[in-house]
Structures are given as C-alpha cells and as structure tokens.
C-alpha cells in the first residue's frame, strides 16, 4: 500500500468514502435550494429548519404512531412538503415581484421561529433515533468498516438527485417548469396554471429537505439546531455550484463533501472553513458559480 503525506492509502480511501457520505447530504439539501431558487427566485433560508422538521416528523411518527423509518421516509416529506405549500400560499406568493431580500428575510425569520419553538419544547441536546433494523451492522471493506446505513444514504440520495435532475431537465413537465420561470405570462397564455406549478415546486423543494432530515435522523441526533449547523455550508455549496443550477448543486454537493473529508485528515482545524475558502475563490474567478449561467 502506498502512502501520501504520511497517510496510508487505507485511511485515505476511508476518508474519501466518508466525504462522499457527507456530500450526499449537501447534495440533497442544495438540490432543494437550487430547485426553489431556480423556479421561484426565492432564497429559502427556512431550508435548514425544514430539514429539522423532517427529522422531528420521523421521530414523532415513531413515538406516537409506531411508524418506523420506512414509513417516515415517505410520510415525513409529504407532511413537511404540505406545510411548505401552506407557507408558500400564505406568505411567499406575495414576494415574487419584490427584491430577493424580502424573501430572504421572511424565510430567515420563519427558520428562527421554527427552531426556537422546537428548542423551547425539546431542549438542545436532541432526541435519539435509531438505525432501522434492516440496515444495522456494516461491511468490512478491508480499508474501513462501512455501516450499511451510510451506504444506503449514498445510494439513495444519488438516486433521488439524478431523478430530480432528469425530471426537470429532460421531461415535458420539467420543460413547462423551466419555461414558466423564463416567461410566466407566455406560459400562462398556453393554458398552464403557473401559480399552482410554482406552489407545488416549492412543496417539492421543501419535501427534499425533509427527506434529507429523515435520512440524517439515525446518524445525528434529532435536535432543533441540526439544520442551522448545516445550512450555511449548503448555501456555500449552492453558490459554488451556481445559483439555480440543478446539476451544479448535485456535483458540487458531492465534490465538496469529498474535499471537506480530505481536509479533516490533512488539516482538521480548517475543515469548517475550507468550503468558504473555495467559495471565495470561485466567486473571484467565476462569479456565476461553476455551473451557473451568467446573467
């Protein structure tokens, strides 16, 4: 086995894999953000709170309805997605014509309210949620022990990301969506209900956040600030990928997960900042982001 800067290849493979796992959360969350920004022009700061709501919904389903992980992965995104639709109908729909700042302030305020409310009732230490029995245990890959659940996270989120990309970029429904963001008036003239489509898109983006929350619940504790810890990184991912670019969000999500993972080996103290350093460099060289269409 070869060595690189004193790190054995064994350790290196392990760290790359870990980076990929963390990257799947970044990808899933930034995908939702990119969809929402691309279609609605809203910078959805509530995304972290909605991710947290997904995890809490999974916890409540188990506690009060006895429904385990597999139910939660379907039900929680639906429930949280519906709350997203309510938020869109009540508040967001009035803001599309205004400056980005208004949407940002509103969604940021909502995030604070959601997180504060949950903290008030459930404290900050979090609540336990265990890995579903079918995915417990793990595989010894030789260079590392890979828990089955983490392998599932990578595969499943990759599938969700690619499906979403396919639907938006390669299907008729997706083309309506993209057309509606370019020129809503014209698309309406063809008899398509644009406001409803936008509402459902927001609901879908929020459901993606909730899905990520359910997937995170067995790994991290279910806690009110779990989203706040992640959301800034996810925003950086979206900025690096290019605001509104679906493929950009997916690729940078996984890519930055890996870069962050490697930083944790070579210079662990900087692992929180490395993504922002990359963001600064990308903004200097390509202000529209790596995959962004420059305006």
């Amino acid at each position, binding site marked *: 086995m070869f060595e690189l800067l004193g790190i054995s290849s064994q350790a290196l493979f392990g760290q790359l894999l870990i980076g990929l796992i963390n990257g799947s959360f970044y990808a899933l969350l930034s995908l939702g953000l990119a969809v929402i920004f691309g279609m609605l022009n809203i910078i959805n700061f509530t995304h972290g709170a909605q991710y947290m709501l997904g995890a809490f919904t999974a916890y409540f389903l188990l506690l009060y309805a006895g429904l385990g992980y597999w139910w939660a992965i379907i039900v929680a995104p639906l429930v949280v997605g519906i709350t997203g639709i309510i938020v869109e109908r009540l508040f967001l729909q009035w803001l599309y014509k205004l400056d980005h700042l208004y949407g940002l302030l509103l969604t940021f305020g909502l995030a604070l309210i959601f997180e504060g409310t949950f903290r008030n009732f459930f404290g900050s*230490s979090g609540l*336990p949620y265990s890995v579903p029995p079918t995915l417990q245990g793990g595989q010894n890959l030789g260079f590392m022990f890979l828990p089955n659940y983490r392998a599932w996270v990578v595969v499943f989120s990759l599938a969700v990301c690619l499906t979403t990309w396919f639907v938006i970029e390669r299907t008729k429904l997706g083309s309506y969506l993209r057309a509606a963001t370019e020129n809503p008036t014209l698309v309406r003239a063809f008899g398509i209900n644009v406001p409803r489509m936008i509402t459902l898109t927001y609901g879908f983006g929020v459901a993606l956040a909730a899905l990520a929350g359910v997937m995170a619940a067995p790994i991290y504790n279910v806690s009110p*600030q779990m989203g*706040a810890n992640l959301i800034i990184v996810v925003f950086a991912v979206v900025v690096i990928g290019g605001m509104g670019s679906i493929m950009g969000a997916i690729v940078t999500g996984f890519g930055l997960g890996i870069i962050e993972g490697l930083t944790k080996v070579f210079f662990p103290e900087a692992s*929180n900042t490395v993504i922002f350093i990359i963001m600064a460099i990308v903004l200097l060289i390509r202000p529209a982001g790596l995959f962004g269409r420059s305006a």
Partner: protein
Amino acid sequence: MKRLFSLTALAVVFGCGCAEAQYSDGSIKIGVMNDMSGTYSDLSGQGSVLAARMAVEDFGAAAKGMKVEIVGADHQNKPDVGSNVVRTWIDVDKVDVIVDVPTSSVALAVNEIVRDKNKVFLVSGAAASDLTGPKCTPNTIHWTYDTWALANGTGKAIVKTGGDTWFFLTADYAFGHALERDTAAVVEKNGGKVLGKVRHPFPGTDFSSFLLQAQASKAKIIGLANAGADTINSIKQASEFGITQGGQNLAALLAFITDVHALGLQTAQGLIMTEAWYWDLNDANREFAKKFAPQDKGVHPTMIHAGVYSAVTHYLKAVEALKSDADGKAIVAKMKEMPTDDKLFGKGTVRADGRKIHPMYLFEVKKPAESKAAWDYYKLRATIPADEAFRPLADGGCPLVKS
C-alpha cells in the same frame, strides 16, 4: 446565523425595599450568562437561571432585607458576545456578580473583565483549569469542576483498569485543549501512552472522519475531549462505525446527565464519567431535583445547575456578612475565609487560588435493564475524596498563591 438576538430574561425575585445594609444601587444584581440556545443550553441555559433563583429563595434574601435581582443572557458560545454582555451588565445595568459561563473561551475573557472592574465571577459551567492556574484572579472562584478533576477522575480510573494507550478527539478551543492537556498528563503519569490526537472544529456535526483516524491509531482508548452535542454525536457515531465492537473503548471525559438522556441508555451504557454532583445521590439532591425538573421542561439538574445554586448561596452569605456588595475582591476574600455549607454540596472550602474544594464522583452509566425510572442513569463506582479531587495548590502556577 442561528442566533442573532441575545436573549435577556429578567427575573426580579423579590424586593421589600427596607434594606438594612447599604447595597450598591439598592440591590444585589446577579447576572447568569451561558449558552441559552445552542449546544450547551440543556446542561446550563435557563436551568442555571432557575437554580440561582432557587438559591435566592432558599437563602431567604427577602426576609433578611436583601433585595436580589437575577438577570440572564445568552453568550452564544462566543467570547466577543460574552464580553459585550458582561461590560454592559457591569457598566450600565450595575450587575454585581457574574455566574455560570460555560465555554472556557468565553469564561477566560469574562475572567479578565471582572478583575478589571472589581466585581465577582463564580464559574460553574466552564471547565478549563487555567481559571485557577495561570489565569487565576482575586475576583474569580471556580466552583463545580475543572479539566484537571475530570482527567484525574476518569483518566486515572481507565488507565488503572488497563486502558493505557490513548487517542484524543478534541474540541478545537480553550476547553478542549485544557482537557486534552490535563488528561494526557494523567495518562502519562500513570504509565500510559498518548498515540495521537485530532482537533475538530467547535461545534461539529459529523465525527466519522475523526473517528476513523482514531480507529487507525489502534489506541485502546479514544478520549473525547469535547462536550454537549459534540460528545453525543461522537459516541453515537462511534457505535455506528463499530469502534467499540472492534475492541476500542470511548472515554467521555466530560459528559452530563443531559447527554446520557439524549443518547439513550442503549447507546450510553457502560460509559464512565466524573461528575461533582448527581441528583439521585442523597435525599437533599432528590428533593432539589423534584422541585427543579418541573420548572425546566422535566430536565433533571446537572452538576452545573447544582453548582450555580451552591455558589450563589455562598456568595449571598458573604455579602450578608460584609453588609456590602460593592468591593468584588473583598467579597471573594470573605468567601475564601468562610467555610462553604449548603444542602447540595455539603461542607467545603474555597482555596486561595479560587478553587472550590469538594469530593468528586466516578459514575458508570447503567444498562437499560438496571434503570428503574426516567433519569435513573448512574451507578456510583468511586468517590474521590475532596483532598484528592482537585489539582494540588502548588501545581497550578496561580500567581495569587506565591504572594
């Protein structure tokens, strides 16, 4: 970004206005500052404000003609935020004593301000033993526990039972560094060896990368020099990655009962930890917990909460004896001169370097089957007597001791 607003909770305890003694601005003002919204808010947070209020009530301040006010604030675990709060409190709001202050980086900043302004600083939440070492001041008392005591309790017990090679997972700020330093010293002194360490950003979320590095070190013991949600996630993810099944053991160098509650006994069972106080240790503690829990969302008091109660009680006794709350140095000198005695910590003393002396306890987390009720989590493994629990006075390097 999550907490732009610092929370200021104001709780006026009681005032009869018929002051016999002369207190500055007519009242004694206690400022409880800690993390009220983040990773440390369950183990300190509003519970510490509550504990201070209970101390004032039990002391009978009102009946004695002492008007006591309690204010609370959130320092968000940031030294700059904490420093600003304390400056405003002292200069504008005329706060006389700062209490609790977990997060050692914040506590070390506050330590300097309180000395400059000649007020009183009673530390319950922070851990860094530097507060009674090189950074000791005549205005500060370190009440509940410190990194030296934790290392001495947990570290020694583990090395003695065969855990002689260590790898540290350390929170990258003053507290983590101090805990790592003090534990490494204990490990080496008892014949063990430190194989490596990794410092993770604070607060962290995913520890799997660091845990893999710990695993690769082949150390028998992975020492967690972090706290709160960081410790919870480290332990949870270590079990996920099969680290304990692989023969390595975790040492949670600082863990609180709220962490055990969040982990659940299934994951936490068998952990060994050192604490200064446990609610189920005796009748007085149980009675306190019974009164405390319903007022704090059912959360049972941690040793930090109990320490706040004990420290505030002793402070009020000293102020009562001096009949003044004006001169911080004089109050702390009085607190050092008077022996401590309260229902939660029993009899004790405050040393010249500001270290409060009492026994520490080594606990083991119960198996799920052994726990009879919610919050019934610990069994007592050993009591570390008061004269062995803390760093010897001469070893700390506190300038106050030499003079």
